[in-house]
């Protein structure tokens, strides 16, 4: 743009450009470096020390913290739980979201109302959602209690049951987030040209065939984005778990982040917690790279 500028003013204009860059960019760079990048680099550094956070880290232990994390049964339990969340997101939540998106994506007042309802849980704070459901699941006074009483059964405390507590958490996750995925699909479905669907109908395609051969291929990018969010979301699940089980009973319902919180942060084991953070970071990078690759492959086709 500056190339087309009238020449007399040019020198002054260049200075003006520099002023703008020097004035407008540093605040973002400073904040981002200080509170995002430096802590991230610190995590790598601290993870090599045994350190309780006071004084300077001095007890260098090499990769000991990593060995400790990877040798800890509860860590692997938390990884397993995060994988379960991911599987449920992909096998239950995304198909449910897609089904509902197909049912309500057309612009009518009733559809708009249903969209609003389905999206509502997403807007609530995770912590409030967790508390609401811990009441629902409560075997003493909650909704579960009422249901068991109505069926004439003894109350069952699902959140206190080692085998079922995490299943209960996945129900809450689906409840909380399917509306978000649905909205992504709806945005994409509304962008599918109406002529394509008309053409399909003229060729005698049924309802299901239109969905299968026209709509789903057309919204593939949206499906991939939502899959990416499902992975990232399952990696960082935290808030919902705290009010529901706080990682219990007997540490069976930790996710990676609640594990980091319980075993690194609350005990101020900075080195150990940082090692967990670094592992989480690496997992996120692997996901991002894999996602980018698939995107590139799709684009190359």
């Amino acid at each position, binding site marked *: 743009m500056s190339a087309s500028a009238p020449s007399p003013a040019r020198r002054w204009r260049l200075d*003006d450009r520099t002023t703008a860059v020097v004035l407008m*960019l540093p605040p*973002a760079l400073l904040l981002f470096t200080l509170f995002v990048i430096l802590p991230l680099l610190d995590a790598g550094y601290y993870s090599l020390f045994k350190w309780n*956070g006071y004084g300077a880290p001095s007890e260098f232990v090499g990769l000991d913290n990593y060995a400790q994390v990877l040798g800890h049964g509860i860590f692997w339990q938390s990884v397993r739980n995060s994988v379960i969340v991911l599987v449920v997101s992909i096998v239950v939540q995304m198909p449910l979201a897609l089904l509902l998106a197909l049912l309500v994506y057309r612009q009518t007042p009733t559809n708009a109302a249903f969209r609003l*309802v389905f999206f509502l849980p997403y807007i609530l704070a995770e912590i409030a959602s967790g508390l609401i459901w811990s009441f629902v699941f409560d075997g003493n006074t909650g909704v579960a209690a009422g249901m068991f009483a109505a069926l004439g059964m003894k109350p069952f405390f699902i959140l206190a049951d080692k085998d079922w507590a995490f299943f209960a958490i996945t129900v809450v996750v689906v409840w909380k987030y399917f509306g978000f995925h649905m909205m992504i699909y709806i945005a994409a479905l509304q962008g599918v040209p109406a002529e394509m669907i008309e053409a399909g109908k003229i060729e005698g395609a049924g309802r299901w065939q239109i969905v299968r051969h026209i709509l789903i291929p057309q919204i593939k990018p949206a499906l991939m984005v939502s899959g990416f969010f499902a992975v990232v979301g399952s*990696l960082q699940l935290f808030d919902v778990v705290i009010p529901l089980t706080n990682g219990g009973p007997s540490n069976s319902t930790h996710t990676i*982040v609640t594990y980091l919180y319980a075993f690194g942060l609350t005990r101020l084991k900075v080195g150990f917690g940082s090692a967990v953070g670094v592992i989480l970071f690496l997992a996120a990078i692997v996901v991002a790279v894999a996602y980018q690759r698939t995107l590139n492959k799709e684009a190359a086709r």
Partner: protein
Amino acid sequence: MNMSAFFAGLGRAVVLMLVSAFVLGPMLVTILGGFKSAGELRTNPFGFPQNWQTEFFSSILSDATFWRFLGNSLFISLVSVVLTLIVAAAAAYVFAQIRFFGARWLQAYLLLGLVFPFATAILPLFIKVRDLGLLDSYWAVILPQTAFGLSLSILLFKTFFEQLPKELFEAAWVEGCGYVRFFWRFTLPLSTPILATVGTFVFVSSWNNFLLPLVVLNSRELYTWPLGMMQFRGEYVVEWNRTLAFITLTILPSVAFFLAAQKYIVAGLTGGAVKG
């Protein structure tokens, strides 16, 4: 054909009703539960209360700490919004408008935040905030959460700024209007839709944030409402109805805000997702 259309319509209605019940059920029992006595909560968890008890609501509403929690959350969220809008829009404007050496690198650097979860660096972040002397202050929440929101905000702003008509800048430039002045006088006023979207997005995530305040706030006077709610739950662990009243009072503002700003919320979340 008519038969099959009928059954398709029926199936559709049944699915929509079932999912609506699944979504709204827990919220309704929560709202109604706050009006029930402990005995009734046990015997009648689903239905309307026989006599509506309002004592929990009035005792919470007349409690100064409840308002304090909400006030803290509101203050932190508003400052975060203002700070994010200024800082992110300024940076995005530079990337959208000015070509200079290293611009691509700096932009890639600032977008790194899109990739990894906030929790990865939470422990070193705690140490950093402590060493800066910010621990247990509003800024301990505001600055890190603003920093973490920058990547997405910059991306959204930049995409929008690039779609603004180029001729406008060229005309202003010939008139002698500099880059910084153009930003204030033209770019920002023309960008209200995206400002609203990013602002709403930042506000909602700040309002609901739990992990960061949990880690960096100690004193009760500074608690945001999610922290206050968890503490309240701990205090009245046997009185579900009291807790349910508390939850109701805190989710109602969220729901009201959502209904008022849904356009921007949906645009921010899905638009950002699809473009990102």
